[in-house]
């Protein structure tokens, strides 16, 4: 835990000098997304700091996952712009890795763990290039980083939920991207997996990469992340965890008395 605190402290120093928007790994401007008649995300601006680990936090139905999908263009944007390293995201997709929610695919699909990780090399392999030993070794190394090297030849349906999540992370690692976008990576996983995932994400940050996670567990935000983006359809607040993840902002995000009880348990500083 003390390691985490140290890392967070050092990040605060970095975040003081606000970079130009062009340097931002992910700049979101006035992004609005609607399902039918109701905005799921309304006019959200956000500027993700380089080499930060940002949690997107908000109640159920606040548009967290939708925000991520709209950033990637998986769901259509009603208005707004998304810049990655100063360019429209469509032009620099090779620098972005995406980890979808585990439940979004059919795990009965006939394929093995190693094949899923090799999907992360699609941009390199293209249509017809053969998978060579070097590719396999890279995929295995990625599996090793998430502690799943022994499972390479398993059918994916035989994995537990936590193991499935690790395989998805390994696939993203294989993409060797600069910006990692993860949709609820800790949802429904066991404690060991949670530990393994957070270690990998922190290592990514150490390699000067940027990590953004949709996150639902308020109790771990301060431990895991350097920055936080609070949303509830609109952006409520954005910034370093120490100054932004406050009882007041959470109250604004969640509302209701139920939230108050939760927030009390977090023992946050009152700004």
């Amino acid at each position, binding site marked *: 835990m003390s390691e985490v605190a140290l890392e967070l402290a050092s990040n605060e120093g970095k975040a003081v000098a606000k970079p130009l928007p062009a340097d931002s790994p992910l700049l979101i401007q006035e992004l609005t997304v609607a399902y039918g008649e109701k905005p799921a995300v309304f006019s959200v601006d956000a500027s993700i700091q380089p080499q930060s680990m940002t949690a997107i936090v908000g109640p159920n139905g606040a548009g967290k996952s939708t925000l991520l999908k709209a950033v990637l263009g998986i769901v259509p944007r009603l208005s707004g712009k998304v810049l990655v390293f100063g360019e429209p995201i469509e032009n620099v997709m090779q620098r972005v890795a995406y980890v979808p929610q585990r*439940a979004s695919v*059919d795990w009965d*699909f*006939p*394929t093995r763990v190693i094949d899923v990780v090799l999907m*992360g090399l699609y941009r390199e392999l293209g249509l017809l290039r053969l998978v060579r030993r070097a590719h396999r070794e890279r995929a295995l190394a990625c599996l090793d980083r998430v502690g799943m090297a022994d499972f390479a030849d398993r059918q994916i349906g035989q994995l537990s939920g936590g193991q499935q999540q690790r395989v998805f992370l390994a696939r993203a690692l294989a993409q060797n991207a600069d910006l990692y976008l993860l949709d609820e990576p800790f949802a429904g996983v066991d404690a060991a997996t949670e530990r393994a995932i957070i270690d990998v994400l922190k290592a990514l940050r150490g390699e000067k990469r940027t990590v953004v996670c949709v996150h639902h567990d308020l109790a771990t935000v301060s431990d895991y992340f350097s920055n936080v983006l609070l949303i509830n359809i609109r952006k409520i607040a954005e910034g370093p965890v120490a100054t932004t993840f406050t009882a007041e902002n959470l109250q604004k995000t969640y509302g209701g008395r139920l939230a108050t009880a939760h927030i009390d348990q977090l023992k946050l500083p009152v700004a």
Partner: protein
Amino acid sequence: MGAEFVQLSLTPILIGILAAIACALPGNFLILRRQALIGDAISHVVLPGIVVAFIVTGTITTWPMLIGAAGAAVVAVIIIEAIRRVGRIEPGAAMGVVFTALFAAGVLLLEQTDTSGVHLDVEHALYGNLESLIWFSAEGWGSLLDPQALAGLPPELFRMAAAAFIIGVLTIIFWRPLKISTFDEGFAGAVGVPTTIFSLGLVIAAAVAAVAAFDAVGSIIVIAMFICPPAAARLMTNRLEIQVLWSIVFATLSAIIGYVLAGYGPLWIGRDHAVSAAGMIATVSGIILALACLFAPHRARIGAPKEG
């Protein structure tokens, strides 16, 4: 197994095998995408496509029929998508609305059109006429080396071979993006696979297989081959690569056993008339699937089903 076999049975069996493989290949992906019934829908809308092509051109030659049927398949898919999205109707029902209506339109158009000069009717569309695709000029196995005899091969054989070849090559070339987008569409989009083009492309490939096969073997085989061999293959293995190979094996077996049973089976039990080869091929593919459901090594589900 001599001259008579080469003349009467060799080409229908080959055409049957090629048709079965051409349909089974896209069928593998349709099944994994929970779109197995797209194959059913396509094989129904082929009829109006061909009838319209005939009305426009006045002939039943390959290209107009191919374009008419592929066009009808694309139109059907677009209407299904529109109903699903705009009307917020579940895909199965949207499909049911569209393919029955288009099939009804095809039947009605056919009744209203003078087709006395050509071989075009609903029953032909359903069962095809595999038995009639014989090799007149063949005199025995030696004819396979005789250019004159080879020139007399039924044109359906080349058509079906071309369709099977094209679909096979496309499957190999686009294997990787097809697999990724079938498994995880969101991720596929994020790594640059044009997922919409691939799902439409798969439908068009299925339509091409359906049209090419339809003329020779009728739509029953088309639907059966889209679904039964890949479904049985899914129960044999947990790897897509091997599943596709199994589906080719099952498709081939269905075609051969089905044709032989239809042509020679009745003789064995002392009757003198052959039965419908198309129907028998579909029946055999069903028996193979039934056996796979009962005994195949990987018949039970292990992964959690997709939510929502």
